């Protein structure tokens, strides 16, 4: 009838892997552009509010937003996008839970500015300059957006309708999600679309190799062992987070003989991925006495970076508590 529905894509603090992922739907893109207008919209970044305001509210069918909210401009812009879009989709791990850049919530922003511009051995910065919100060079005021105290997942800033998991979402997951969005009959608000309802084990080729009782005597780090390709990695003491992680990727990492690190995030009934993952791992440690438990847990110097790899920013604590 009238013109094709518009789909916008906007990126916050992301690596571009999510855009690449959409490109990876390859020839299917050509089918897609027949039914929708894909308005890539990087320009929106430093768009002044008044200009966007000119667009009628809800004029965009769906905005797929990837990347976490890192700087004030992101925050500002996604709020406007929310108003302009009928549906907002948090696309990819960073947008859904903060992703790997969310790990910077273990540090205060000044700490990583300090590191990047003053500490690293290559830096040659005699006047100890740090990028400023606003500086005047040769009479021109140059402004930079402000870095937020913490990186935030999209739903901590605006209302999110749907989530597409993955770092990045695979081409198939993306394609399924897009079809759901176009299908008209939409799932309940807040749903994760395009992926599985079950954990990765459901689609893992090694799941059936598990013994009935899954208990582990040691925590091994991937560089320490050559895993038996015929056996569930977890039962070999490798921290495979598959049991706690949403399926949908087809167990790509496990097929490459590497443990799942959880990039598809938690399942519907889990509120804090890291705490839940830690819970199941601790539970299956086959030890009774306290020292032995301490000892095996010390084999894992960085539990936060391991269990909250992609979800720290969306966790109950959201990151490191500030000092008094």
């Amino acid at each position: 009838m009238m013109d094709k529905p518009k789909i916008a894509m906007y990126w916050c603090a992301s690596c571009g892997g999510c855009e690449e992922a959409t490109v990876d739907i390859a020839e299917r893109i050509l089918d897609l552009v027949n039914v929708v207008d894909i308005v890539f919209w990087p320009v929106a970044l430093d768009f002044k509010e008044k200009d966007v305001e000119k667009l009628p509210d809800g004029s965009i069918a769906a905005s797929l937003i990837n990347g976490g909210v890192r700087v004030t401009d992101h925050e500002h812009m996604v709020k406007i996008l929310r108003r302009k879009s009928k549906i907002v989709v948090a696309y990819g791990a960073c947008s859904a839970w903060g992703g790997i850049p969310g790990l910077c919530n273990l540090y205060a922003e000044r700490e990583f500015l300090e590191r990047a511009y003053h500490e690293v051995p290559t830096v040659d910065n005699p006047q100890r300059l740090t990028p400023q919100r606003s500086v005047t060079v040769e009479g021109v005021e140059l402004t930079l957006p402000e870095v937020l105290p913490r990186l935030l997942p999209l739903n901590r800033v605006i209302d999110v309708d749907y989530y597409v998991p993955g770092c990045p979402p695979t081409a198939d997951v993306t394609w399924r999600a897009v079809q759901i969005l176009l299908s008209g009959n939409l799932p309940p608000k807040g749903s994760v679309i395009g992926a599985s309802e079950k954990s990765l084990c459901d689609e893992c080729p090694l799941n059936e190799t598990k013994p009935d009782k899954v208990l582990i005597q040691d925590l091994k780090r991937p560089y320490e062992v050559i895993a038996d390709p015929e056996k569930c990695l977890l039962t070999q003491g490798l921290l495979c987070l598959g049991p706690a992680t949403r399926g949908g990727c087809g167990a790509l990492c496990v097929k490459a003989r590497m443990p799942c690190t959880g990039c598809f995030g938690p399942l519907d009934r889990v509120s804090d991925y890291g705490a839940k993952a830690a819970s199941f791992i601790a539970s299956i440690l086959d030890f009774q006495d306290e020292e032995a438990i301490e000892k095996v847990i010390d084999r894992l110097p960085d539990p936060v970076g391991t269990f909250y790899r992609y979800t720290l920013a969306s966790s109950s604590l959201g990151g490191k508590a500030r000092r008094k």
Partner: protein
Amino acid sequence: MSEEPKVGVFVCHCGMNIAGTISVKEVVEYSKTLPHVVEAKEYLFMCSAPGQDLIKESVKKSGLNRVVVAACSPSMHEPTFRRAVEEAGLNQYLLEMVNIREQSSWVHSDEKQKATEQTKDLIRMAVAKASLLEPLEDLRFGVQPAALILGGGVAGLRASLDLAERGYRVHLVEELPTLGGRAARLGKLAHVDMRGPEMVGSLIKAVVSNPNVTAHVNSEVTGLDGSVGYFKANIRYKPRFVDAKCTLCGECFRVCPVEVPNEYEFGISKRRAIYLPFKEAYPPVAVIDSETCTRCGECVKVCEPHAIDLDETGHDQEAIAGGVILATGFSPYEPPEGEYGYGRSKRVLTLFQLERLLDEGGPTGGELILEGSTPRTLAFIMCVGSLGTTKNAHQYCSRMCCASALKNMLRIKDRYPETEIYAIYKDIRTYGRGDEKLYEGAAEHLVKFIMFDTPPTVNMRSEKLEVEVHDATLQEDLLIPVDAVVLAVGMSPSQSLPKVRNVVKVGCSPEGFLREAHLKLRPVEAPSDGIFFAGSVTSPKNVIESVMAGSASAAKAAALFGKEEVRIEPMIAQVTEEICSGCAICIAMCPYGAISRKQKGEKRVAEVDKALCKACGACVATCPSGAMQQAGFKDVQMMAQIAALTEKRGA
């Protein structure tokens, strides 16, 4: 439950018990402001008839579908209020109790305002949880009126007889080739003019002659499925190699070339590979110890009744029961070699060995003879293996050793009046009925009592032994030359317990004895329904106490068999198959083996056996995908309760 929750909050004054500390008015007014709360009421005694009526009326009038009662501890009145809620036409599990007496007014009475604030918090949290409660149905199981009893000692025998006489089937399983247990190997008993074997023998007769009892001797329970009401046991009959045709003529004992120490006599005598454990063993049929038997066949040749079959392999038999009684007894404390010279000198023996020596049915026909002579001076060292006297010793008191030792001192004095006896003790506890007389008697017979703080040492001077001890009363070091030393050893948890616990899922206390549901209120019941304890499986007991426990457990079992069905609280684990990935993580979490994987399509998913689940929730906290949930303690319910810890604006 999709319908909008309508919560009623009922706050009890409990007279002044609660109202004296907590401002009930304020709490009630506050409750009215909480989400989903349509009604909040207070009453003097909510548990009273009018109090309960108040709840019922409100449920009917205001169409409440959730009830929160803030009163005493649920352990006090939860049943009361569940009944009230049910009578009001609601499912009884739509009740949430808030404990504001034991856990607030009574402990915070000097901080009234803070206690009131705390109460508001607790009610807010309870309302949040209650709003998400769902109706639940009790689990019901039919009951098989039959008992499976492990252990054929006095406790097991007593329990068997009591149940059999009440008309219930009994499967009595004894691991050894003879019934009777430890008591059957005691000599003269204290207070009654009777030998252990005689006393136990009479009990055995009564049991085996009762048609309701099947005694599975020389057998073990190797598998147990099911739960309260219906257990299916697999009983493994070990080969005995000798059948009932045996006349105990003794020919075979004569020709058997193998000779080993007789464990039934605690090693003080020898036996052959084919043997009878002891004179009064039951059944009165020889048995071959397959470990040591060389299969030479000599016995077969001399056996006239042809009772011996060396090719016997044993067999399995199934038994069905509604309840299980564990009466597997204890093991005597075995001193490590060298403790008080034990194992180094034949003249250092344990109380149990002494009992055999002094029993006329024993190897010496009751003569106290050690290495050919009768000792003239004897030292009894008490509390061996008990009261933490040595580093291997248990911390607890074994209760029976004092009386038993004293009894034996008197028997020795009686038979060999000249004998000089020293009783070297840390403490003397003759608490049992009439036991004090034994102590007085010993004193009259001039047994020399020496108290120690630091345990004595036993030195071996060539032939003679000497006991070196610091007398804690006289505060002087003594060196006592003696001919023999008797160690009054205590009781350890039965060595067969680990094997038993592999089959019957029960917990044990730090000491290693089995753990009761409640030490004082439910001393003969296991935490898991349908499993009972008799005798010294739960703690050291003397004969009288063991027999009492036997009867008590029988009474409990009978009470169970009397019902045609049992009701169990439904707070069990449930799997949502749609989201279970069959990751199998939950399976190892269940201490009761209630979880397994079942085929669903081409994949497998977890499955919970309702009957086996005991509702601990360990699998739920572990389930990485949230597919496993516990009725009444679902994640969403718990999270709602937690989220209400502090007031959220607009919440």
